[in-house]
């Protein structure tokens, strides 16, 4: 079943430098790996109410590792 009312979030792990800005902006969606601080996507299709926080995370990310797909 296709989930509706969600965003698609993609991360490019190779680009990540572990600055943690995404975790500050959208802690429900992003976390950091224990051993190297690299981004962990907790929810690749988060609910729309997270969209402002996710957009902020993408803008803050200094390595431009977060992309959003919005219909």
């Amino acid at each position, binding site marked *: 079943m296709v989930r509706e009312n969600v965003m698609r979030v993609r991360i490019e792990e190779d680009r990540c*430098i572990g600055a943690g800005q995404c975790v500050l902006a959208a802690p429900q969606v992003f976390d950091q790996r224990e051993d190297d601080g690299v981004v962990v996507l907790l929810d690749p299709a988060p609910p729309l109410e997270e969209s402002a926080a996710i957009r902020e995370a993408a803008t803050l990310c200094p390595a431009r590792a977060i992309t959003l797909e919005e219909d």
Partner: protein
Amino acid sequence: MSEAVLDPPAFPMPRSCPLSPPPEYARLRARCPVSKVVLPDGRTTWVITSYALAREFLADSRASKDTTRPGYPSPAPGFRAATQGLARGFVFQDPPEHTRHRRMVADEFAVKRVQGMRAYVQEVVDEHVNALMAGDRPTDLVRELALPVPSLVICELLGVPYDDREFFHTRTAAAVSRSSSPEERTSVLGELRHYLSELVDRKEREPADDLISRLIGKYRRSGDYDRERIVVTATMLLVAGHETTANMIALGTVALLENPDRLAELESDPAIMPKAIEELLRYFSIADVGTARVATADIALGEVVVREGDGVIALGAAANHDPAAFDHPGELDFHRSGTPHMAFGYGIHQCLGQNLARLELEVVFTTLFSRIPGLRLAVPARELPFKGEANIYGIHEVPVTW
């Protein structure tokens, strides 16, 4: 329209008000946001004064941070000496080395890990605010609070034993003191490096629950253990985290005391403290020239093409005071939203310790102003000894009373 050929202006540029960026930044931005300037060593470099172009450039993989490349700009006298010996640190490397070595230590500064240091930071701040209140007035806020707090937090992080912390702190303070000659500063930095080298030896033999021990373990497991690299990383963390945080404590305190309306706003609504800290970071952008790079290819920036091998500095204070990005950039406004500031830089080299810096600033300002509500400057702000010539902007001494 004829275009006058102007000689590039000298850099660094003087400030007319110690609490504002050099006025020349705005003139350069209006004339051409990517301009040439002449550095103290007589060489020219590009400076970027627009927020959008600064971000574009710092995110470009052709912007190298390798200080050993010939075109790398030396933004202030003493820069080469200060970075010598750290050239192998990831701060001055490009990918893939940068990525690999930054990740070795990035977990230590992850958002949740830094939150785990809150209790220690609070303890250190409480102890120093108590001592400040028990001492004579006026007193120097820099000596009593701004310098010891980040120094002790770094000690805790690195695993400097309690018995050595007094030594460590007196040396870190001497390394940035204006009463130290350049030779003394270099020699004190040498002492600190020697101390950290011995500390790494000790952690190799007796690992404990601290950053250096964990780093030793990680590199050993990865099969390319190099003890000198650990010493360089520890030295780099000290250099990057000490004076920067101290200067922000000093400047932030002065800015709040000089803007009683903003301070009152903060006191009536403590929940805006995180936004107040972001705004103070933006406003002062103390590591203005921390974003020096060298172009490894021809790069088009707006109407200018920066040539391969040219030095480029994306000026943090200029970008953060660009009216196209921040309305009324010269005002302190704790309700800004949207545009992220570049006080910690941008791109893959953005400050690793930024979350720890935020925590320290939050605990210091919250504690200082709630414990000493009558805090005030003991001399007029314009008479404070600002660090006009330094790589990182700040104030040498802030006499306060209450």
